[in-house]
């Protein structure tokens, strides 16, 4: 927490807007967080970020080019369930944003997955949810029909 206090004291820019470009290749978009400065701004921005989309992933790299095996596993699992419409944020772009993400969820590692503003867990949890069928159920609660469920129906 000390580093958060140092960051807040160091940065005198307040009210900095969050710059979030939209990628050309579709709905999945990443954030450029370099305009986030004060730690409090990061926490506030994160509060908005996780509420804004049903499925939010903080990861290393992008869904098109993950930079970490665990982040890639999250991307692949979502892809397997046909979840294309989610917001992803590349924590490698900004170290203050990265630290802010961990502080916000009180979770020490990346990737991190949120469903409807609620922290779900990291790669391990998502994988286990995928394996035990819970992920299909949780997606249903979000109004997302997993393509694995549809595939299963078709095979019957």
């Amino acid at each position, binding site marked *: 927490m000390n580093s958060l206090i140092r960051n807040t004291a160091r940065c005198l820019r307040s009210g900095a807007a969050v710059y979030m470009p939209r990628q050309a290749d579709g709905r999945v978009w990443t954030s450029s967080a370099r305009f986030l400065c004060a730690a409090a701004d990061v926490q506030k921005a994160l509060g908005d970020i996780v509420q804004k989309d049903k499925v939010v992933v903080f990861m290393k790299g992008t869904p098109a080019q993950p930079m970490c095996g665990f982040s*890639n596993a999250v991307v692949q699992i979502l892809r397997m369930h046909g979840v294309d419409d989610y917001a992803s944020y590349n924590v490698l772009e900004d170290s203050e944003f990265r630290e802010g993400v961990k502080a916000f969820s009180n979770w020490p590692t990346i990737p991190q997955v949120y469903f409807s503003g609620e922290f779900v867990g990291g790669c391990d*949890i998502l994988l286990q949810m995928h394996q035990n069928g819970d992920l299909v159920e949780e997606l249903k609660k979000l109004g997302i029909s997993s393509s694995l469920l549809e595939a299963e129906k078709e095979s019957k």
Partner: protein
Amino acid sequence: MLPSVLRCVRPVSTSLSLSRPLAHFRPHMDPDPSRPVERSIRTKLTDQLTPDHLEVHNESHMHAVPPGSESHFRVLVVSSQFEGLPLIKRHRMVNEALKEELSSCVHALAIQAKTPEQWGSNPSLAKSPPCLGGSRGDHTVEEKLKAGRE
């Protein structure tokens, strides 16, 4: 932008099969005195979670970090303290026990947290996905490696 993605070379001798049904018959792995982080992880998880079964695997060699690093770990904890708790709470308990390591030298921690019953019906260690080289050139990882060496 970060340098192009390189796949890590994983030595064949340390490849894990997807499930190891006889894992629970393995002799208890003695902590290596030359690996202080592994020892610390083992001690803290034992003290705080009183596991029936515990495995601590240093997977740093599978990632883009120098040989001998203690930065990437996989832990399997079987404890009755997890009874009735959702996965997220179980993982938070493990994170809490290891918060010092996670804030200093440990960069990645893969967790399996099972009750004794769950372990009995499926005694298998999960396998980590292949590294995509993200630790290379990541200054946060470099800082953690430095913290581990000091």
